[in-house]
């Protein structure tokens, strides 16, 4: 992109030509071609003083041509980036669509699911669970690392009175609790109920937030990198939301890792207006369509402790 060197004091800073914050010394309507300045050290205002010498007749004759060239360059500077940005936006939007398509082909899956959430202002320790999920909404989770190792949770939509069955690990596990999944006890130390666990809810949320923000011009989508993430090759996408007119989004900034092979969001981190992390989730050791059975989601399963 063509750029204009700024005034003395910021010799290395550059700004796009035609940007709204151009120097008051640079009037695009009367722009003249300066001689190439060969000078070591920072440039000063004097380096850009207009010459008092009248332009030669050759230069005067060539002026329309120069204006044409400059106008072309200016148009190119404006059009090429916007085209590139549009291409990138389309590519990123297609990622969301592809994630939806990928998830549509999934009936069940197992994974190691990690979550870390900020609750009541405090970032809680990361929790690591073994997750079993079957559509439409059957969830079994077992905490496999401290501090909650041994805890189990089971929620099957339409069964067990639509209650969340949960028991703690260790000696506290002698009682199985039957809780409203959105009640105060179940939501203690959680930002989301168990009914919102899994790829489906995450993809729905991404799709909903991104489409709304795009519709209102309140989104900045960036393809950050492709990198290894928990042993998988992933595309890293950043979304920044700038809500206006009272609209709200789930986060101010979101960084998502999309598994390139599975085309599923295996990592997502959400930041608030102060760019402080408030939620982070990841999935590893993902196995799709493994053929989970009713016993995997039964409180009578002898391998469980409900």
């Amino acid at each position, binding site marked *: 992109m063509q750029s204009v060197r700024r005034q003395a004091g910021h010799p290395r800073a550059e700004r796009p030509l035609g940007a709204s914050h151009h120097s008051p010394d640079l009037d695009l309507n009367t722009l003249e071609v300066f001689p190439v300045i060969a000078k070591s050290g920072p440039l000063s205002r004097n380096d850009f003083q207009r010459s008092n010498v009248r332009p030669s007749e050759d230069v005067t004759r060539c002026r329309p041509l120069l204006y044409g060239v400059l106008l072309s360059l200016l148009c190119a500077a404006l059009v090429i980036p916007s085209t590139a940005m549009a291409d990138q936006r389309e590519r990123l939007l297609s990622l969301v669509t592809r994630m939806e398509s990928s998830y549509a082909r999934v009936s069940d899956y197992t994974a190691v699911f990690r979550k870390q959430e900020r609750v009541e202002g405090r970032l809680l320790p990361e929790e690591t669970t073994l997750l079993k999920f079957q559509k439409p909404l059957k969830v079994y989770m077992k905490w496999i690392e401290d501090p909650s190792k041994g805890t189990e949770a089971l929620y099957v939509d339409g069964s*067990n*009175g639509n*209650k969340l*069955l949960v028991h703690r690990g260790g000696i506290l596990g002698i*009682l*199985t*609790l*039957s*809780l*409203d999944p959105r*009640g105060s*006890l179940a939501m203690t130390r959680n930002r989301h109920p168990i009914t919102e666990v899994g790829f489906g809810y995450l993809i729905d949320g991404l799709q909903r937030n991104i489409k709304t923000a795009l519709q209102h011009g309140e989104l900045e989508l960036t393809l950050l990198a492709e990198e290894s993430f928990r042993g998988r090759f992933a595309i890293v996408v950043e979304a920044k939301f700038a809500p206006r007119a009272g609209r709200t989004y789930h986060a101010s900034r979101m960084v998502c890792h999309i598994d390139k092979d599975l085309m599923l969001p295996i990592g997502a981190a959400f930041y608030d207006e102060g760019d402080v992390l408030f939620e982070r989730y990841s999935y590893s050791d993902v196995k799709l369509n493994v053929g989970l059975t009713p016993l995997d989601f039964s409180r009578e399963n002898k391998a469980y402790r409900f």
Partner: protein
Amino acid sequence: MKDAVKRFGILFPIAIDNGFTIWDSYNTRYWPTLLLIDKRGVVRYAHVGEGAYDLTEQTILRLLAE
């Protein structure tokens, strides 16, 4: 327990069931389990888990009116 009773202003009797005697005698499996027993000592209502507060309240009123 005494501190908790005082803190929450609980006026009704509370049974201590550290040995799970009552828990087991009603085949209780999950907490909370709510049983309503009428004046004749018959279990008239059971609810497992949180929730159903309105239904429970209505049942209590109906049983008291009998």
